[in-house]
């Protein structure tokens, strides 16, 4: 499936759809803000430090953009951008996975028979 992404059509980006593009953007933000997020969360979620510090922690966490949250990231299919039915190890939707497996493109994948 070398022609999964069409490169000869006029497009603004080469993502399958906008949702995939947004998901990619969220992942990038996640990586960028990860340390700040961890520290702010540590300050917020503890009962050891004084309340003022905890308040500061909550404010810091609120300042971080929402798209930097891990919960907003969705493991989509890399080719079709399908949000559900994604085989995690290959990052492909079950349909694409099946078609590739049938054409013998997935290493070690074989039709089950027992």
């Amino acid at each position, binding site marked *: 499936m070398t022609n999964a992404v069409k490169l000869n059509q006029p497009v603004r980006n080469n993502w399958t759809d906008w949702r995939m593009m947004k998901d990619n953007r969220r992942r990038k933000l996640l990586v960028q803000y990860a*340390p700040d997020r*961890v*520290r702010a969360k*540590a*300050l917020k979620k*503890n009962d*050891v*430090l*004084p*309340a*003022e*510090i905890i308040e*500061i922690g909550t404010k810091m966490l609120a300042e971080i953009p929402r798209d930097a949250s891990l919960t907003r990231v969705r493991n989509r299919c890399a080719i079709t951008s399908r949000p559900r039915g994604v085989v995690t190890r290959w990052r492909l939707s079950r349909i694409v996975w099946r078609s590739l497996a049938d054409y013998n493109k997935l290493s070690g994948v074989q039709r089950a028979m027992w």
Partner: protein
Amino acid sequence: MFPTSMATSIRNTKMLLRRAFSIKRNEILARNLCFTRTLNANEDQDKSKKVVEEKKNKAELKEAKQKEAKAKLNMLLESMSKTTQKAYPSESKLSLATPKIRAKPAKPVKQPVFNTKIEPEMLQAVEDVSNMLSKEKEALKNSLIAKLEDVADESERARLEPFKPNKQKTEDLNSLLNTLKVDGKKPKNKSPAPKLAPVKIEDIYSAQPSGIFSKAHFIEESSAVSGLATWDMLYEKELELAVTHPPANGFQQMIQWTKQGKVWQFPIDNEQGLDEEAQVGFHEHVFLEPHLKPWCPRRGPVRHFMELVVVGLSKNPYLTVEQKKEHINWFRDFFEAKRSILIDTGAIPDITTKSSPSLST
């Protein structure tokens, strides 16, 4: 069937002739039809010759009859031409409407010459000139027309042939131009250009600077920032592509990756590529208390918090030692910034008399 004889009354000759002729034709056609049918029916080769003979005879007969008919037709037509005048007068006796005849205005006599080589305007000009200038108008006109025609011919020839510079002609032209130059008109009295005093320069570099441009503010040309960012990026990409040679197929791609070390080596080692990290000992990852020692207070909520942080980091296999240190340092800076709040809340004991700037006692 009508009688085939042509001897009938004059009034009906036409009609009868036509009918007879058509009947004659039909007869002939019918005969031919039957004949062709018989021909088609007889496909035997023995009878073919006979059939051909018969066909020839029939053709001859047909021709003869046609000739006869034609002769008779001609005779009748001749006889008819005399009689039709009497029978059918050309002028009608009916009083029909006729158009009014208006006397057309006398138009001026147009140029009789339609010379293809010379334009009509030129011809008109020639006419006018010849009328005005001399008495022998015709001779002058003809001579002028002849000259114009010659010119036209020459231009046509020159147009068709490729151009070859004629030396004699160029010489003539040059001489003409020279004469023109010599006989040029003298310019009229114009206001002479303001004449400055001639500057006497003895030594160029010894003179003092005039200081004309000392206060000048030259407007810097705005740096050519092209608004075509995409174009610039694509141009750079193209340059890169021209220099590098991306792989043409999968084999070349695999070769490139192997050279770059991106390909898994067998037997698979999970820590392939993490050579630097392998050199760092586990003690640096786990024992992080020395990083707290310089700044963190020995007791209190801050210490408690930082100990928890350190325990968490010691159990984290995904961060490098540098990242862990950075993490701890960030907290140090944060608590340093919020020192006043910590003192107010009582997290840190109030030590105003102490000279050391650190948080530790």
